């Protein structure tokens, strides 16, 4: 293993991370909610009266982010390398997995670790390990076309 210095972007990573933290802090302190994307999205599939508007509002903000971003500065490259079939499998796994695991990178990774929840720390370690292992398998063990 070596460090990919050419793609390492520490400043924008820290700045973007701080913005994510500010958004999670705002959502907690004003709306009283955890900014966990999979939970907010999953709740739409279990509709309860009075529980939908805030979900749609948060998700609308998230979806509009690239639209607003583009008004001020050119969008950085967003490169999806997976094939359509792979995206479908990945999406299904992410959907089922985040609902059984009750959280994703935002809910467990950012909010859960911020409040030092042992459950979220374990979940984060597990999905990180799952991600590392999967990329190791697809990039180094069973490389397509080799």
């Amino acid at each position: 293993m070596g460090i990919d210095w050419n793609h390492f972007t520490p400043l924008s990573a820290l700045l973007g991370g701080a913005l994510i933290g500010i958004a999670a802090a705002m959502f907690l302190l004003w709306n009283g909610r955890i900014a966990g994307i999979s939970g907010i999205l999953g709740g739409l599939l279990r509709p309860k009266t009075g529980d939908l508007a805030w979900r749609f509002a948060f998700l609308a903000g998230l979806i509009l982010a690239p639209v607003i971003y583009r008004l001020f500065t050119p969008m950085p490259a967003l490169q999806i390398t997976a094939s359509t079939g792979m995206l479908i499998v990945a999406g299904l796994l992410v959907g089922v997995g985040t609902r059984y695991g009750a959280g994703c990178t935002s809910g467990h990774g950012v909010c859960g670790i911020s409040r030092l929840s042992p459950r979220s720390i374990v979940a984060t370690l597990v999905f990180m390990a799952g991600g590392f292992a999967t990329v190791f398998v697809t990039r180094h063990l069973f490389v397509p076309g080799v």
Partner: protein
Amino acid sequence: MNNIFALLSGLIFGIGLIVAGMANPAKVLGFLDLGGLWDPSLALVMGGAIAVGSVAFTFARKKTTSFLGLPLHLPTASQIDRRLIGGSLLFGAGWGLAGICPGPGLVLLGSGEVQGAVFVVAMLAGMALFEVLERRTSLAKTD
């Protein structure tokens, strides 16, 4: 008013994902590729977000309601069980296949990427599958 704050939170969250590089699946895969040339950037994204987040969560501990007078909905679950581990493992596998987790998926959708929409539709189908399986389990239990 509540929904304006929710919209703003979502917006700042999404802009943060774009600035951080987290909305770029190729960069996420570069972070997850420990066996190749490793791009550690995303560790700093998490670090930056947690640094700010922990201040807010520590502050919130002394509060019972939000600034808008809403109840604070903090998670109460604490059990570390098979569901948590198994679910997180499936999520990690899906994340590693495409380099996309739920937040960036929605940002990719908003950026007009057709492939982003494919991912989001599949993710929603996965979540719907969970709901179906859950309902079946709860029905089986009440029988």
